[in-house]
């Protein structure tokens, strides 16, 4: 069974700080997705990365896929309280069910 390890598990920062969270696997991904989940709601897709070395930007969020397609990172610049939530990575080999990491719970304090 493919495992996805996310770190850190918890992160509490002040508004305006930068942060990076990580997602690592023991296997190669065909693609990797990042979701954000707010309390009482289902996860919502932020981005999908497919190509090794790929970098995608979504406003203040920057997503990077490792060259070997076994790891990914999410960097948030100048975090805001609205960024608070659970960040989940998910991936797996092609045509197999997605495997989700346990998530990084981010709290941004105003």
């Amino acid at each position, binding site marked *: 069974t493919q495992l996805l390890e996310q770190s850190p598990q918890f992160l509490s920062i002040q508004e305006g700080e930068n942060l990076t969270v990580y997602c690592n696997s023991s296997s190669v991904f*065909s693609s990797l*997705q990042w979701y954000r989940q707010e309390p009482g709601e*289902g*996860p919502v897709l932020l981005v999908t990365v497919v190509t090794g070395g790929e970098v995608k930007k979504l406003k203040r969020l920057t997503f990077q896929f490792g060259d070997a397609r076994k790891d990914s990172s999410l960097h948030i610049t100048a975090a805001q309280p609205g960024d608070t939530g659970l960040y989940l990575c998910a991936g797996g080999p*092609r045509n197999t069910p997605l495997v989700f990491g346990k998530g990084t719970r981010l709290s941004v304090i105003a």
Partner: protein
Amino acid sequence: NAGVTQTPKFRILKIGQSMTLQCTQDMNHNYMYWYRQDPGMGLKLIYYSVGAGITDKGEVPNGYNVSRSTTEDFPLRLELAAPSQTSVYFCASSYSTNQETQYFGPGTRLLVL
């Protein structure tokens, strides 16, 4: 479009009772999924379906059953509820392969006492 809807939002069951969690999507997606989310444990796949009439087990299928008679509906059945099934259950759907965007419902919170 309502997207993915789930009912009920919250339910308390006694040990040994059974219930069906309902899930409906109006996006004409082929793939549908059931996950459970325990505190600090991320999402674990229970069952999934690649189309009407086709279902397959995920990582944690024991104690659950599913059916997929239509494209829109994918109910999850719990027989003989146990305290270990206390969790939040999410239904999701996607248009095609498992690597496509998954759209999640709002979840059903289940407490088994």
